[in-house]
Every structure is written in structure tokens, then in C-alpha cells.
């Protein structure tokens, strides 16, 4: 068996010959591995939609999809790393997004700080909350050898405490950040909100930075190694405790940022925003293969596109249900996701 870091680097290699992705790759000719197959599938889907609905409508929705895809991807990468590293299905992850959004609201509106500073504050505060939860809850429970159900229920309890704690402080009325969500920019006949454009730019810069960090830095490689096989990583001399804390900083910080970006793009926040996003994040994570950081990034973007493109076919109010349908369909047809390995799921 290859070393953990090596196998984490190349999930694509071992998947090449298996499953629906490979079949699609063969059908589309010359595809190599699930990444190529997925690209081909998305391209084919886009082409079919263009034929049916015209280039402009499909492109406009792709732009919208990239906006939501960027905060899905940021939220999903943390969820998948925490799962991979700690085997913790964190039902409180969505509420970390909510926490980030309200921290930004407090800094931006209550204290009157500029939004960029407020976003940074939200990121740091949410990262701190993530580390706190690790120290107070998850590390002691791991030490006691807590089982799956115990951990799941504790993440749910934490989710309730965060969400309804926020509701006790700020109420259920929608809150706004100090941003202009009406101004928009036109290019090539497509429109994108000025704030949405900033969201996409920030989102993609951070996503690329994460990708580089995971691939190039030793901390990033250790995180993926741990996510791949914890005991093997420990055996190779990685300081797992340090990496676990780093994973929480990373996962929660990005969740906080995703919450701010979501609120900036949509315009309003309510205490249940994170819970409503959580299942979309799970869909992105499962689509990409649970535990696979690059998969989560890709899954987030694909989910954003799928949800927006679905509005060509169905009423937009079913958009969110598309995410759930993808989640269930992927788990049934290909539970290891597009880029995952089979033994994780059965």
C-alpha cells in the first residue's frame, strides 16, 4: 500500500478503471479518470441545455452558479476535512457559517468597521469557535472512545446551541451587512451583482490558495494524510494533535468566511441560514467523495451550477431540493462520490 500522503495526492489514479465515472470517460472518448469524466459530463449537460434554452440563459445561470458554488465550496472543504481527519460528521458545520455571518454583522454594522475587516474578524472568530469546540468537546470525547451516535448527537446539540443562541441575541428578523446588493455590472450581455462579483473573486482566490496550500505546504500534506488514514499518518511521525487543531482553524475559519460571502451575495441573514445550507454542503461533500478536499471544492462548484441550471427546467423554488436529490442519487448510485474511494462508504 502506498503511503498516506501519496495516496491522498492521487485518488484519481486508483479510480480510473472503476464505476460510472470511468464508463462516462470511455463513452466520451479519451477521458482520463473521474476529473475528465466529470468535465465531459458537465460540458455535455451544458451543451444540451444550450440547445434547449439558448446560450444566454445557460451562461447567465452558470454565472449565478459560480457565485453560489464559491460559498458552497468554501463551506464544503471544511466539512470534508473534519470528517476525514476526525471521522466526525459535523452537523454543526452549517451553524458555523451562521456564526461567521453574524460576527461579520456585529463588526460591520454594530461597530461600523469596513466589510473587509469585518469578514476577517468573522473568519478569526469562527476559527476560534472551531478550536474551542475541539478542546472542550471533541478531544475529550475522542479520548473516551465515543461512538458514532454519541458524536453525531453532540454535533446536533452544538448546532442547536449556536443557532438558537444567535436567535436569542439577534432575533429572527433578517439582518443585512452594509453592502450594496442592487448595483450590477454587465459584460457580454450577462449581468452579475457588484457584490456577487466580489464574492466570486474572493471565493476563487481563497479556493485556489487552499488548493495550493493543501498540495504544496507540509501542513496541507499532513492534513490530507491524516484525512486519508489517521493511524498510518500517526505512525509516520506526524504530530496529529497539531494537525487536528490546524484542521479546525482551517475548517471553521473557511466556514465563517463562507457565511459572510453567502450573506453578502444574498443580501440578508437569518439564524437558520447555515442549517439550510448544511444539506447542500453535505451534497457537495458527498458528490466530491467524503474526506477528499479537492473533491469538496469541485463538488461545491458543481452543485452551484446544478442548482442554477435546474431553474431552466423547474420553478426556482425547487432549487434547494435539487441539492438533496443529488445527495441521495449520488449515495445510491456512487456512494464514494466522483473522486472518492469505495471502501469509505460500505
Amino acid at each position, binding site marked *: 500500500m502506498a503511503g498516506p500522503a501519496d495516496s491522498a495526492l492521487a485518488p484519481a489514479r486508483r479510480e480510473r478503471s472503476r464505476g460510472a465515472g470511468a464508463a462516462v470517460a470511455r463513452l466520451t472518448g479519451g477521458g482520463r479518470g473521474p476529473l475528465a469524466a466529470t468535465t465531459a459530463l458537465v460540458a455535455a449537460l451544458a451543451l444540451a441545455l444550450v440547445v434547449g434554452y439558448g446560450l444566454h440563459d445557460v451562461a447567465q445561470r452558470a454565472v449565478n452558479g459560480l457565485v453560489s458554488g464559491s460559498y458552497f465550496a468554501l463551506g464544503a472543504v471544511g466539512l470534508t476535512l473534519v470528517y476525514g481527519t476526525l471521522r466526525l460528521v459535523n452537523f454543526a458545520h452549517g451553524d458555523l457559517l451562521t456564526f461567521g455571518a453574524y460576527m461579520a454583522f456585529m463588526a460591520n454594522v454594530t461597530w461600523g468597521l469596513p466589510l473587509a475587516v469585518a469578514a476577517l474578524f468573522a473568519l478569526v472568530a469562527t476559527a476560534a469557535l472551531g478550536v474551542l469546540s475541539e478542546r472542550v468537546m471533541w478531544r475529550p470525547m475522542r479520548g473516551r472512545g465515543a461512538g458514532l*451516535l454519541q458524536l453525531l448527537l*453532540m454535533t446536533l446539540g452544538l448546532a442547536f446551541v449556536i*443557532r438558537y443562541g444567535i436567535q436569542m441575541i439577534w432575533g429572527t428578523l433578517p439582518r443585512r451587512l452594509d453592502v450594496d446588493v442592487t448595483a450590477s455590472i454587465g459584460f457580454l450581455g450577462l449581468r452579475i451583482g457588484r457584490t456577487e462579483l466580489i464574492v466570486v473573486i474572493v471565493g476563487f482566490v481563497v479556493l485556489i490558495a487552499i488548493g495550493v496550500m493543501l498540495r504544496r505546504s507540509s501542513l496541507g500534506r499532513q492534513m490530507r494524510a491524516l484525512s486519508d488514514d489517521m493511524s498510518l499518518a500517526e505512525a509516520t511521525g506526524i504530530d496529529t494533535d497539531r494537525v487536528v487543531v490546524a484542521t479546525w482553524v482551517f475548517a471553521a475559519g473557511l466556514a465563517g468566511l463562507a457565511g459572510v460571502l453567502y450573506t453578502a451575495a444574498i443580501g440578508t441573514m437569518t439564524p437558520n441560514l447555515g442549517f439550510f445550507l448544511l444539506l447542500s454542503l453535505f451534497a457537495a461533500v458527498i458528490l466530491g467523495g467524503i474526506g477528499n478536499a479537492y473533491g469538496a471544492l469541485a463538488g461545491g462548484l458543481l452543485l452551484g451550477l446544478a442548482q442554477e441550471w435546474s431553474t431552466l427546467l423547474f420553478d426556482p423554488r425547487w432549487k434547494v431540493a435539487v441539492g438533496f436529490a443529488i*445527495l441521495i442519487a449520488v*449515495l445510491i448510485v456512487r456512494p464514494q462520490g466522483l473522486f472518492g474511494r469505495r471502501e469509505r462508504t460500505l
Partner: protein
Amino acid sequence: MTPVLAVSFDALTSAGFWIGVGVLAGTYAIFTLGLQLNVGFTGIINFGQAGFMAIGAYAMGILVVRAGWSLWAALPAATAIATAAGVLLGLPSLRLRADYFAIVTIAFAEIVRYVAQNARGLTGGNQGLLGFDDEWLDLSDRILGWLPASVQDQFLLPLLIVVWIAVALLTGLLMLLQRSPWGRVLRAIREDEDAARALGKNVLAYKLQSIALAAALGAIAGYFLALNLSFLSPESFEPQFTFIGFTILILGGLASYVGVALGSVIIWTLLEATRFVDLPLAAEKVAALRFVIVGVALIVLVAFRPQGIVGKREEMVLRD
């Protein structure tokens, strides 16, 4: 200045308060019996119980209001629909690992709620569905007529009586089932699925029966919820109600059917009592406080007393 925590205990001595708590506790006891069967006795983590409750309640409401059925015919039909939904959900997803199954079931419950919210022609959407309970109200009046004159103003009393008769019957039935060979196979699956399979048991079939039965129990809880509110709306079926169920389950104790009723009474007394704590807070914030309590209770119980009040430590599926 008024004190921060002024508690009036007047409410706790009123019969109306306890009847209200009793109806809710009974409804959620039935709801949680399904969770107990799945989680406590079969070892499958069903996070979609609110979805089955919604399917049962809406199927009943739609059959009566839209299709003109009698309530008494709609109840068994709706139970059959919910049971079928359980089989349909379980068939592809019970093969998955436990944590994936938990995610699938919560996604399923959310899809059900989305449909209830958005298929307005059928479910009334957020405006809700009304007018399914005329036949129940007639029966309720008749039951009230048999009761002493002093309780004639307690119009929820008949529902309280019926729901707790149902709790007692269903608890008894489940305990009998659990002692049967069928129940022993379920436990064997919970303890060691591979061993059960090696002995020639069709594990998937047993798990499907467990989830189907839980779905039926969810549906029955849904009828009592519907009759209590005389109104169905999607927000009564949000996923947090499944997790109130889990709090009841853990408080009462895993692998104990009697613990379910006990846990339900304690949780609903606690939750309803927060209405009467005179906090300097708006109503929505008091509502939030209730769920903060649920969250804290869940964390503390799971961390420090995972076997609950009457659960047995050696029967815990919590550590696997």
C-alpha cells in the same frame, strides 16, 4: 427594576397546562418509540423521523380534505403510505454505512418538508391544511360527555386520553415484539451484523421492517399532532423535532421502551414550562431558549449519562 427571573408557578397548578403537556408528551412518545426501535434495538440511525410524521399527517389530511375520505378510512391508508415510504427510503439506503444513512434520512425529511411547503395545490403550502378533524371533534365531544361535569371545560382531555391509550398499547406491542424471535434477531443485528448474516438472517429485510414500523409510528404521532393543532403546516415537521425525539430517547435511555414515555414527559414539561418563566425577552427569543435547552441537554446527556434514566449500559449501541 424587575427581577431577571420571575417565575410564576400558577401555570404549573393549572389543569390546562398539564393536559397540554400530556398531549405533546404522548405524541412525541409515540414518535420516539419509532426511534427507539431503530436506534436502540436495531442500531440504525434514523434522522428522518419528522419526515415520516409529515407523510402520515399530510396523507391523512389530503385524503380527508382533498379526496373527501372519512377520517377513519384515511388513518389506516395514511399509515400504509408512510410504511411504504419507509421501505422505499430504506431499500437503497440501508446498505450504506451508518453515518451516510443518517445524512440520507435527514435529506429525505427535508425533501418531504419542501414538498409540503411548495406543492401548494395539495398541501396548502405555508397557509396550511385545515378541516380534516370534524369526525374527531364529534367523537371528542362524545368522550367528553362520558366524563364528569367538573372537567367539561377541558376540551383537550379526550385527546389526552386517546393518545396515552395509544402510547400504552404501542409500548406493550413493541415490548412483546422485542421478546419474540423477531426482536432477538434485531438485537443480534445491532450487536453484530456480520454474525447475524453468518447465521443466515436476511439483515436488510429485518432492517427494512424496523424502519417501516418506525415510519408507521411516526405517522401515528403525526395524526395526534394534527388533531392537537387542527392544522397542518410544514413548520411543524422541521428536522429539529426529530432531534427533540433523540433527546427524549437518550434521556429515557436507549433500548428501553418504558424510558421513552418517561423521557417525553420530562422533556415536554421542561419545554412548556419555559413559556411561563417571565424572562425579559421577546416571544421568539423564548422559543429560541427552548431549543438552546434541548441542545445543552443533548450534549450533557450524551457526554455524561449516555445510558439515560433507565437504559442499560450493556445494551448501548452508542459505542461501536
